């Protein structure tokens, strides 16, 4: 057992030292590259959304947990594109997956829900029934 762990430790160390681990604990996909590309070309907003989506899909395909922050980052990218309803879905996913994110995600969910396009009918009560035809 010591030999196996020794070999495993060396392999991990080698991979870590090379800066690109061959097998990471989480399925990151091209997450850091998506962030880098976003900072390089902030105008390419659709590409950022797409790249983050790919990370999510890859984790799903591999049957692995979506890593910390990725659902939230995708949710926020959608938020900045005005897709508030979808954004909430992903903030909720992050909150449910990572309890530590609860405070921030609930804040973001509240923000997103406030942003929802205002209803055309004025002064609705909680029942929200149609007051104008």
């Amino acid at each position, binding site marked *: 057992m010591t030999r196996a762990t020794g070999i495993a430790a060396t392999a991990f*160390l080698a991979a*870590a*030292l*090379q*800066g*690109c*681990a061959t097998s*990471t*604990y*989480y399925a*990151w996909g091209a*997450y*850091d*590259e998506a*962030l*880098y590309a*976003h*900072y*390089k070309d902030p105008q390419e907003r659709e590409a950022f959304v797409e790249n983050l989506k790919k990370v999510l899909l890859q984790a799903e395909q591999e049957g692995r947990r979506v*890593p*910390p*922050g*990725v659902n*939230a*980052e995708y949710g*926020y*990218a959608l938020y*900045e594109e005005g897709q508030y309803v979808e954004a909430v879905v992903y903030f909720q996913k*992050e909150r449910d997956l*990572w309890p*530590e*994110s*609860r*405070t*921030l995600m609930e804040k*973001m969910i509240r923000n997103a829900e406030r942003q929802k396009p205002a209803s055309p009918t004025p002064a609705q009560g909680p029942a929200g029934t149609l007051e104008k035809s």
Partner: protein
Amino acid sequence: MTRNVSIAAVALALLAGCAAAPPKKDYAKFIAASPRSILVVPVVNKSVDVDAPAYFLSTLPIPVAERGYYVFPVNLVKRLLEDDGLSDASLVHSADPMKLCNLFGADAVLLVSIERWDAKYVVLTTQVTVEFEYALKDGKTGETLWTDKRAMVYSSNGGGGGGGLGSLIAAVVSAAVTKAAPNYMPLARQVNAAAMIYPGPGFPAGPYLPSYRKDLPAAEAQ
């Protein structure tokens, strides 16, 4: 016979030196604080490269999360801080860590500054240097739990190489290529990876790794 023994002794001492971590870090505060979540905020830039902070920020979440801690989404955090009037990283870094952590519900905040991020042409070689200084501060007390300072240099013309016009031209081309497009990102990732290695300079396993609390330095382990 005495010579063999002394050689063996020196060899053992060297091996022991290699196996043991360089200057042992005191993890007592880190372990006492036991953070589960880490807030990674925009980095302070002491280099002249204006792109460095954002690019470097993109390399931080993965190595920290891989140590088993929850890491908040860096871009979301950056944008929220900007919207709150904290678009200057130095303002963020000089803010009260307890207030910062409270804003996001984080246990600790990671403050990194870019000390060096440059590519210099020095006699047929381009040297790309990155250097970072890290500090992890406790969200409950504001205390510093962990610090590190790490650099890495890449030389476009690694070995001397044989003489001759061919290798001279190769060196010049290599240096020019590197100077035109320095390989900052792979270097930065390597530095972060090196900073996170444990046992060594890095973080003990966080709550999401199987080795959580099993890899603590003997003195601090309960």
